């Protein structure tokens, strides 16, 4: 084998690229794994154990951070320590035709180092939704097609959660859930069976491990994952902690950081991809690598940008774009509408440990005839939790100082909604015709908005949250809306969607490109709908394992 030729190439090392690498390597394929950013080695490169007072700004964002990363510095877990896992926006420009917050992490592990870790299976309701209400194209798969693959990836990911037996939120292969605190448990108990639409409070399902998996975890409840500081205990799943080390262990992986793929090479004789053209992001030198199959896992917008930038006389508007759908149907998820209140009771109780998850309210709108809504299709879920802060002390001197250590009189609890974003053709990304970044890659333009259906849910998300808290016995309830712009949920999906019909979709039911059979795309770009429930990453992981299994079988049958 020449040193530029492999069995498979994986583009990207984030949550789906890590899985592609692991699965391909474990099936014996010599695999080149390309990452545009630097290497980040599990534990060795983490600084989560440095006490906060030893960091210069004790976590704060500086003026310089805001100057070089005006978008990233607004992301919820961007801070003094996590900022090394976010890009410099000046070096990595994109154009917002409409406001779109695009969080990016260009390093080995990608955003799996800084992700939100919530993991919820898509249900049959999600897979049937497009066909039923006519938005987007029908998913080419149903729950039964992906269920065994959720079963396969979850024990390796290490998802903690509780089994609830809900058809619209399928159970998985869970580790024991992280406990509710006393107020959450009491509120959950109080609302149980009280709503005719089935509203309930369950444990959050999260890729934080309550049991040890090999040398990973269990979670030590120190809170570094939520802050974006990674975890020296391997207490949560990332490419760095799990899939990439597993891939490396096979001896089949060649990991190449600082390697930005700009183009997929296409041979019109064989009608297949032959390899990739890469630019070294340190030297700007170009190189080509070749393989029999390519897994494209560069994250939704970048995956699509690579395809749009891979033009030829066969594919003048981008590789695999015979449908004209490439770049279209971009979705995120609206979120940030909810309610908070105070709880009377448990005044002598506290929480100990920084739990990296909270409680979850499964979908209860449009799940059957009796929960059908007049104003909108699909639905939303809530995440939240209760906590006990400290009191606002008053005065000065010894009394003030002592008061700073006093607990707040009451616990507070809040729940916040995450909602479905429908696929609209006109929500899109495309490449700018002239502007290029410093690597010579055309700049991505994003034109995406929430529309009527998303807006129609807003009041319901706030009011229903208030109703849940009220039923749960909370007082002083207030509703809120963070008014988040598209992108800020960091669930961007849909720009190279799957589908049954090559005329209207980019990928088939195996995440295989209709037009070019040896290209597989298993990141967020493959999605036909955002789904009502957040936590999409577990679905990318399941789809990736499924697609690799199919691809390798096809290779062995000499169909590729």
């Amino acid at each position: 084998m020449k040193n530029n030729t492999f069995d498979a190439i994986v583009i990207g090392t984030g949550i789906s690229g890590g899985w592609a690498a692991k699965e391909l390597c474990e099936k014996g394929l010599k695999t080149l794994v390309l990452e545009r950013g630097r290497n980040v080695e599990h534990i060795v490169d983490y600084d989560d154990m440095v006490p906060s007072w030893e960091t210069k700004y004790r976590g704060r964002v500086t003026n310089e951070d805001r100057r070089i990363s005006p978008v990233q510095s607004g992301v919820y877990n961007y801070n003094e320590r996590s900022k090394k896992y976010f890009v410099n926006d000046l070096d990595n420009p994109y154009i917002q035709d409409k406001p779109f917050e695009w969080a990016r992490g260009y390093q080995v592990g990608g955003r799996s180092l800084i992700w939100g870790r919530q993991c919820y299976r898509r249900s049959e309701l999600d897979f049937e939704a497009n066909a039923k209400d006519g938005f987007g194209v029908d998913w080419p798969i149903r729950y039964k097609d992906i269920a065994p693959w959720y079963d396969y990836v979850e024990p390796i990911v290490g998802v903690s959660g509780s089994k609830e037996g809900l058809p619209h939120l399928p159970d998985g292969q869970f580790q024991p859930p992280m406990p509710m605190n006393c107020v959450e448990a009491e509120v959950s108990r109080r609302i149980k069976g009280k709503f005719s639409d089935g509203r309930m409070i369950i444990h959050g399902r999260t890729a934080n491990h309550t049991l040890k998996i090999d040398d990973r975890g269990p979670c030590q409840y120190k809170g570094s994952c939520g802050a974006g500081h990674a975890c020296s205990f391997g207490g949560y799943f990332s490419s760095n902690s799990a899939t990439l080390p597993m891939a490396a262990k096979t001896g089949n992986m060649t990991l190449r950081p600082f390697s930005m793929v700009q183009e997929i090479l296409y041979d019109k004789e064989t009608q297949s991809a032959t390899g990739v053209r890469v630019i070294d992001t340190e030297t700007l030198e170009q190189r080509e690598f070749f393989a029999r199959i390519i897994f494209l896992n560069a994250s939704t917008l970048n995956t699509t940008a690579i395809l749009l930038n891979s033009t030829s006389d066969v594919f003048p508007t981008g590789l695999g774009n015979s449908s004209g759908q490439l770049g279209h149907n971009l979705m995120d998820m609206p979120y940030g509408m909810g309610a908070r209140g105070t709880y009377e009771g448990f005044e002598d109780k506290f929480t100990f440990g920084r739990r990296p998850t909270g409680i979850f309210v499964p979908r209860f709108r449009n799940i059957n005839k009796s929960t059908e809504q007049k104003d909108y299709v699909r639905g939303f879920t809530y995440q939240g939790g209760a906590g006990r802060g400290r009191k606002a002390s008053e005065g000065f001197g010894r009394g003030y100082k002592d008061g700073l250590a006093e607990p707040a009189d009451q616990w507070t609890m809040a729940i916040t909604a995450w909602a479905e974003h429908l696929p609209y053709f006109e929500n899109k990304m495309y490449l700018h015709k002239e502007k290029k970044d410093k690597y010579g890659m055309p700049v991505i333009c994003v034109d995406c908005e929430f529309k009527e259906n998303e807006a129609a849910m807003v009041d319901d998300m706030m009011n229903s949250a208030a109703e849940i808290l009220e039923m749960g016995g909370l007082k002083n309830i207030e509703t809120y809306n963070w008014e988040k712009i598209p992108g800020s949920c960091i669930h961007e999906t849909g720009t190279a969607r799957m589908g049954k019909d090559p005329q209207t979709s980019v990928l088939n039911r195996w995440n295989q490109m209709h037009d070019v059979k040896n290209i597989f795309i298993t990141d967020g770009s493959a999605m036909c709908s955002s789904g009502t429930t957040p936590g999409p990453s577990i679905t990318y992981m399941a789809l990736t394992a499924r697609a690799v299994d199919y691809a390798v079988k096809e290779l062995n049958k000499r169909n590729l």
Partner: protein
Amino acid sequence: MKRRAFITKGGILLSTITVGSNFVLTTSCSSDTVAELSGLVSAKEKRLLNELGAIIIPKTDTPGAKEAEIAEYMAVIVEDCYSDEDQEKFKLNLSNIEMKCSQMHNRSFLECSQGEREDLVMALEESDESYSSIKSFITSAYLSSKIGKTEFFDYYQVPGKYDGCSEKRPW
């Protein structure tokens, strides 16, 4: 460890840009050196912050704000994290406190006795926006300091468990 983290990729750019503010001259990340040379918050203002801190959060059975050297940290934050507008407001707030002090006691805060300083703070507690802004900044500087985190509060870097119904305060 932390220093090394700064000097990867983005950090290269960061350190070249901040040459003018002595960032690269410091051999450690000690905030003292940076703030001392930066000049935005003067040595006198820093003494004022530490002494005012000692009135607001005094040394008791645990060290107070002055012992936690809050001023050095505050100066770094004002210098590197505050917008131009907030920097001006901060300077104005300090001079307003000094002005109130000289109206009340005919001398600067640092020249006042312990009792005079307490009288001033007592008066400022009534309703003084400049003071309340500085007070909350002093408080956060204290609580985020090593002393605040480990001596005033109990520090649990690795709790190792979650107890959602604990009898004991977690701080």
